[in-house]
């Protein structure tokens, strides 16, 4: 009897022992797997963001070019682009890895989703090249242009559509082409078609007459989320007003019109930045980086002027050229004094971001004129 009982206890104890030991070992391995999963996701996020950073660096320096990043398995993810206090940050929503950049202006919607990202780099001149602006959008973003805007609509659509696809019409962007941005010129809001609730709509009022604060949103756009319907309106004074959908009405985001600080006649990078940036804070934050850069570039050109001055002080060289560089104060001034005024305003603009930023445009015009005269008279240029 005792042996039987001992046997029974031993068998039972064995099973209990096996179950407990097995459970502990299983839990141990499950714990390792769960931890590895978290580490792998973090690694993936870091890899994605690092590759994006490299692509963005390359895309930015290739001025006037568009590039496309197919997102593949990341098409369900949402990318975010933010800018606060002069620092841009971008990454994937919900993943820890992110990139911060306080030098390069990147204009994009706050949240982007799609099967591919489209990057468009445009140089910002004032009057010499300051930096490259990078516009980021996706194939889920649609841009509708109302009004001519003194050729802005046509120019943008021509640039947004990839010219290597000869089947494009003049009025709309071919969304099948990997490098084309979805754009369309419309005469009224009724021409807007919403084929999916995943799209983001951006309306550009090129003449500044169609969209006002409190005016009604087109009916077909009411199905979309508020943050997915935005608009920008440009005035004749080269100022921008930003709007977002709030229920059935437009809500204006900026209190004062946002000045577009640029002098470009063609492919105005600062103007295009206002088309791609969702809100005035994002736009002004990125422009702040450009203002900082203006100051740095102005400093280096002042040093170049010093070298030019030394060169033309040589008696063998033309005294007339020295006059253009740093001499006679004719009505048009000289390059050195104009550049000094330019740099002073650039410094104030980078610190205060106030009306001195607009005054830079006037200085830039004068520098451009003087640069041209310098080339005509002396076959040499400041820039």
């Amino acid at each position, binding site marked *: 009897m005792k042996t039987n009982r001992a046997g029974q206890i031993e068998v039972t104890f064995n099973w209990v022992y096996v179950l407990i030991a097995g459970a502990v070992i299983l839990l141990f391995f499950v714990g390792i797997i769960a931890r590895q999963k978290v580490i792998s996701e973090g690694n993936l996020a870091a890899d994605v963001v690092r590759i994006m950073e490299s692509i963005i660096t390359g895309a930015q*320096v290739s001025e006037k070019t568009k590039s496309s990043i197919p997102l593949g398995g990341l098409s369900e993810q949402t990318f975010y682009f933010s800018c606060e206090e002069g620092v841009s940050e971008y990454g994937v929503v919900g993943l820890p890895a992110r990139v911060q950049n306080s030098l390069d202006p990147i204009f994009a919607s706050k949240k982007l989703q799609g099967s591919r990202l489209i990057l468009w780099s445009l140089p910002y001149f004032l009057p*010499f090249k300051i930096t490259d602006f990078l516009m980021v959008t996706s194939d889920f973003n649609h841009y509708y242009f109302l009004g001519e805007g003194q050729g802005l609509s046509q120019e943008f659509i021509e640039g947004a559509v990839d010219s290597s696809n000869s089947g494009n019409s003049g009025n709309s962007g071919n969304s099948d082409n990997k490098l084309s941005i979805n754009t369309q010129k419309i005469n009224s809001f009724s021409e807007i078609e919403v084929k999916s609730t995943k799209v983001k709509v951006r309306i550009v009022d090129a003449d500044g007459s169609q969209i006002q604060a409190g005016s009604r949103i087109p009916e077909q756009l009411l199905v979309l989320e508020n943050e997915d319907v935005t608009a920008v309106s440009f005035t004749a004074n080269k100022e921008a007003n930003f709007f977002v959908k709030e229920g059935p009405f437009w809500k204006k985001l900026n209190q004062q019109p946002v000045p577009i600080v640029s002098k470009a006649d063609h492919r105005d990078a600062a103007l295009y930045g206002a088309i791609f940036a969702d809100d005035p804070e994002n736009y002004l934050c990125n422009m702040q980086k450009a203002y900082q850069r203006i100051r740095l570039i102005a400093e280096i050109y002042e040093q170049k002027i010093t070298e030019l001055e030394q060169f033309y002080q040589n008696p063998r060289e033309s005294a007339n050229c020295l006059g253009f560089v740093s001499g006679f104060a004719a009505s048009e001034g000289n390059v050195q004094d104009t550049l000094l005024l330019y740099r002073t305003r650039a410094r104030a603009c980078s610190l205060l971001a106030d009306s001195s930023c607009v005054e830079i445009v006037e200085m830039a015009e004068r520098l451009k004129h003087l*640069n041209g005269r310098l080339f005509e008279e002396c076959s040499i240029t400041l820039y």
Partner: protein
Amino acid sequence: MKPGQNKHRKHLNVLSGRSAQIHLSETVAVIFIFFVLILFGAIFYYKFQEVSFKEKQQELLASRAIDTTTKMLFLPEVSCTKQESEAEPNCFDMMKARHVAELFKEFNQTYFELFSYAKITINQTYPEPFELVVYNQEPGKWANKKPTFFVVALKDEQKSPGYYGYGQVKVEVYS
């Protein structure tokens, strides 16, 4: 009970006790070997991760070298310009480049964000060789250094309008 039966029962008890001890020892040995195998697996995994980590570091260093070189080649502070047209590719304006080192030093924080720990040197090969270090942020301790070279034209209108030399820009990044 017969006397022989008692002895037999005692003998059986001793045998089953020894059997239990052997069984227990077997179990302990199995568990010991199991954990030794896990230890081997963990050591192997650790070594694999270490090699993988070193490879990743090299890859990141190469990527950073390319990024830094790209940024330097297209930097408006040194690029040759053609008025409002596109900048001349792969060309440095020496009248700007000679002063850019001071600018990088004065605005160290800004340009450190751009280039990080790196050394950027312009070496003119023709007509007169010279070396110009425009940026140098070497960390106190570094394990790896990756140099990248790129041939550039060096425009120097202080010598005469339209004067070009050529050389290379060397970008060394540290990690």
